[in-house]
């Protein structure tokens, strides 16, 4: 198993280097000059500007800066935020656990609800529960996260008065987290429902399912022991990839719910054109996707031993 994981990590190195180069080159040739912004009223003071440029190391050749940048990144150093004037890594280290927990909660919701509804859909193929579930899934898939979040807020805060305006991080098991994670889970739910439905539908028509039924296994036993186990491999893959993609939706959900995670960091970085923060957040999301993709392969390897051999 270990060589298999190592091999997967190796294939990701070019991706990360390319990502690092792209973010670096984009912020190098980027617009405006954040240093001038940073200097505020004294923006025209050329000597101070050059000194600041030197202190941030922006006056060295491009390639030298890039190699330096990669080396710093390997040490977990992403430079200092132009606007917030603290180490980006410090901001990232605070934000990553928050986003990871939020994403974990979201993926649990996607898995439980998606697989559950997918099974119901498959069992009632083309009957009304199936059609209703499919329609609701498409509906949730169609509402952008930055529309869904205010709708949920308006409904829960203004109309029903169940919660007050959420702010901050209240831990994994708080209702704020569950609500935000549900919003995050709405978009990817459809894919999991459809995949489960298709997978379960395929397996239900297999001979061994008929055999199981013929020998008197209860319907629950058939679904749990025979159908699900065989239908889950592609769903597990999707879930892992969904986990990797959740950071994209987190930009909108976290900023709407005032959750201090990676999404909020990226959002503020974008607003302030704070390049060190932006590159840091983008690189972390690259690592995040790599991590979840490798996790998928490992899970797949466990579920289907043929994958492990690499053939």
């Amino acid at each position: 198993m270990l060589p298999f994981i190592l091999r997967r990590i190796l294939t990701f190195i070019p991706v990360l280097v390319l990502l690092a180069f792209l973010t670096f080159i984009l912020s190098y040739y980027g617009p405006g000059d954040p240093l001038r912004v940073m200097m505020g009223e004294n923006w025209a003071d050329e000597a101070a500007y050059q000194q600041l440029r030197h202190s941030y190391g922006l006056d060295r050749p491009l390639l030298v800066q890039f190699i330096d940048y990669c080396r710093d990144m390997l040490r977990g150093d992403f430079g200092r935020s132009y606007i917030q004037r603290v180490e980006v890594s410090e901001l990232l280290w605070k934000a990553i656990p928050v986003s990871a927990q939020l994403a974990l909660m979201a993926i649990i919701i996607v898995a439980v609800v998606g697989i559950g509804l997918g099974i119901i859909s498959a069992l009632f193929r083309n009957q009304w529960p199936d059609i209703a579930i499919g329609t609701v899934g498409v509906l949730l898939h169609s509402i952008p996260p930055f529309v869904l979040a205010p709708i949920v807020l308006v409904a829960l805060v203004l109309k029903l008065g169940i919660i007050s305006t959420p702010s901050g991080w209240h831990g994994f098991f708080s209702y704020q987290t569950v609500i935000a994670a549900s919003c995050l889970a709405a978009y990817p739910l459809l894919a999991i429902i459809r995949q489960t439905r298709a997978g379960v539908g395929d397996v239900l028509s297999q001979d061994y399912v008929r055999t199981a039924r013929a020998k008197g296994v209860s319907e629950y036993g058939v679904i749990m022991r025979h159908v699900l186990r065989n239908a889950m491999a592609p769903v597990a893959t999707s879930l892992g990839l969904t986990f990797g993609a959740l950071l994209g939706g987190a930009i909108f959900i976290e900023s709407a719910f005032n959750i201090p995670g990676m999404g909020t960091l990226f959002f503020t970085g974008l607003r302030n054109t704070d390049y060190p923060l932006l590159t840091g957040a983008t690189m972390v999301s690259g690592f995040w996707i790599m991590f979840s993709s490798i996790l998928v392969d490992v899970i797949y390897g466990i579920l289907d031993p043929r994958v492990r051999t690499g053939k």
Partner: protein
Amino acid sequence: MSSATPLEQAASASLANRERNVQSKRGPWRDAMRRLVKNRMAMVGLGMIVLFGIAAIFGEMLAPYDPIRQDLMAAKQTPNAEHWLGTDELGRDMFSRILTGARTALLVATFVTFIAAGIGTVIGLISAYGGGFIDTAMMRLADLLLAFPAFLLAAFINATLRSPVANQMQRLADFTGLDFLAGKLFIDFFLIFGSLAIISWSGYARLIRGQVLSLREQEFVEAARSMGASTRTILFKHILPNSFAPIVVAVSVNFGNAILAESALSYLGVGIQPPTPSWGQMINQNLSQWRYFPHLVLGPGAALALLILAFNFFGDGVADALNPRRTSRN
């Protein structure tokens, strides 16, 4: 209805016969079209798309007010008889803004989808037919893109490249005398088309490459080759027409994604710049006041969600119609 004379019955029977004869002109595309028309959800989606299309084309004429004219005397109104969906904090009529925002959304969706499909098709064809090193290089690139935080990268590109692109465009406009090239709107669109096409061509490329590789081994292509058909003839007369269905499916499914991506970029402030109305940007402008003026967020949000929903319904319908074995609904 119940008492039809024998003559009438005969007439309607012969009419039905004639219809059946007409129907007997069958083909995979005709069959697909028939399945699509029968799909109620897809037709509802198509109807909504047509409505939004009308808003996109004639929105400026239909709008009761100028969508970018500010009227501070009429600011922050809740929906009423004069302003159907209220006004924002600058007194701009929300209904007019939403109506004209349809143009931005549909324009971006159309261009992004077709640019990405075009690039993807060309790269997929080159990859499959070039083989060897070209194939490996292209597919590696596509793999890289799949492992990328794509949307973040698009946002990053839009945030950083705006002023360099604007400079180049200004130079180009001076050189060619075409002033529109340096226009702010053109640069917005150029950046969005470019960044979204860059992150979304790889899916099409893989699709086409797979299609070509499997079709190339089929008997009818072998027959064409044995008759001395050139590579170009085989490619354009035999392989492309036969791989058209999956492209159509991918295009129709991706329309909604493109709309979502544009509005998301505009929401983050790196897409379409004010004052050009864009739903994402409108949502963001009014989001800080969701407590006091929820309708300012919900109006453009509803328009956006409805259009994406329409494309999703329609796209699913097209996919089901072109591939009856697809599992979304059968």
